[in-house]
């Protein structure tokens, strides 16, 4: 592996490890939401309370995806500073989406 790809590859592995560690709680929430949708009466208070907080699953996946886009850009261009600059547009769109999801939660 060329040296230029080593650092992005290590960063990707670190993101995978961090995303997995942080993702344990959202994954548990995902399973709880699935069980509520399957087992509880839709519209009941138990159902509504079980679904509350589901947006944490989307936030987690969006954060991993966003971090990976920077690493992908960095790996392709070899320019980390440029990749960070270019990610700001994506970040702005993601924040808009996250705000909409948080409001819908």
């Amino acid at each position, binding site marked *: 592996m060329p040296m230029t790809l080593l650092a992005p590859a290590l960063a990707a592995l670190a993101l995978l490890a961090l995303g997995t560690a942080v993702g344990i709680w959202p994954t548990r929430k995902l399973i709880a939401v699935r069980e509520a949708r399957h087992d509880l009466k839709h519209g009941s208070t138990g159902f509504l309370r079980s679904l509350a907080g589901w947006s944490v699953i989307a936030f987690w996946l969006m954060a991993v995806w966003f971090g990976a886009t920077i690493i992908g*850009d960095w790996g392709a261009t070899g320019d980390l500073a440029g990749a960070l600059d270019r990610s700001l547009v994506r970040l702005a769109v993601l924040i808009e989406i996250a705000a909409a999801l948080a409001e819908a939660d």
Partner: protein
Amino acid sequence: MEGEVPGATQSDLQCPRCAGQCGWDPMQGALVCASCGHARRVEHLEGSDAAAEIDYCPHAPDSDAPVLARSRVHQCQTCGGAVIFAGAALSERCAYCDGPVVLAEQDEGYRTMALIPFQLREETARNQMHAWIAGRWAAPPDLAQEVEKGRIATLYAPFFTFDSREAVRYMGTYTIRRNKRTITRTQRGQMVTHFDDLLVPASPHITPLIRDGVLHDFEPDTLRPYHPAYLAGYAAERHHLSVPEGLEANAADKDLLLRNRIQDHAGRRLSGITYHTDTTGLRYRRILLPVYILHYTYRGTQMRVVSCGLRGQTYGERPFSYVKLAGYAALLTFIALSLGLAWGAAGFL
């Protein structure tokens, strides 16, 4: 309705043929003698109507006074739950929390108006519970073994059904984007909504797990007038909450349901909702509904799986395997990571 006192029903539970002890058989829908197998129907008093509801007016004199009954009450030393048995006591453990119980001789409770008898045998409920456990994602590998050691309690749990008409006036805010600016707007509205046979626990020991998980298939049409013979062979908790106490205990749930209906009525997500509701036409019933509760312990933590005594709908508490959760999390992270890497490498914005 005086027959609610289990001690007074001992002769009612004797078999007319052999004087053996009878119990309610869910499959036959009858009282069946444990000795000779003779089955007989439960006879109701003429004019008893299970569908009847009582009007409730908060300002009218209280006609719903508790009745002091001499009955053998099994009082839990852990959670305070108190159950009665028609016929022989079935367990020395609490049906709600599996804690030890002590025997008391008196119990004060409200008259039960109707119930739905058990329609499912314990073996069927147990199978449903094990199937539910087997279907859990990210469950520890030894969970099924631990559940196998669990103990099943049968219970008639007390509930209110409430009807009401709610005239709601509400106000909330929402945001819109215009020219890259976020603008907050206020929306006001009013609506009339009804609650019909809203199931409300009449005991602090009945959790949302029991109500929303397993008893949501409850059909008021299948209620029968209360008769103590239906309790033969099962534990039951009497009604201990007054109607105002029941309404107060349900206030948080009613608030959540009303806020949800306001969101639907507004047609958009509102924040900071404030509302005022005028409640009229309040009617209630005091009923008992059948549940099987499986108590099990996993690594020192007590858990419950509950199965409905009507159709076997099952729901419960379960532990997670953090190794499996990490595996699922790694898989999802890998997918998001791969998509992100491809997106970034392609030079998309």
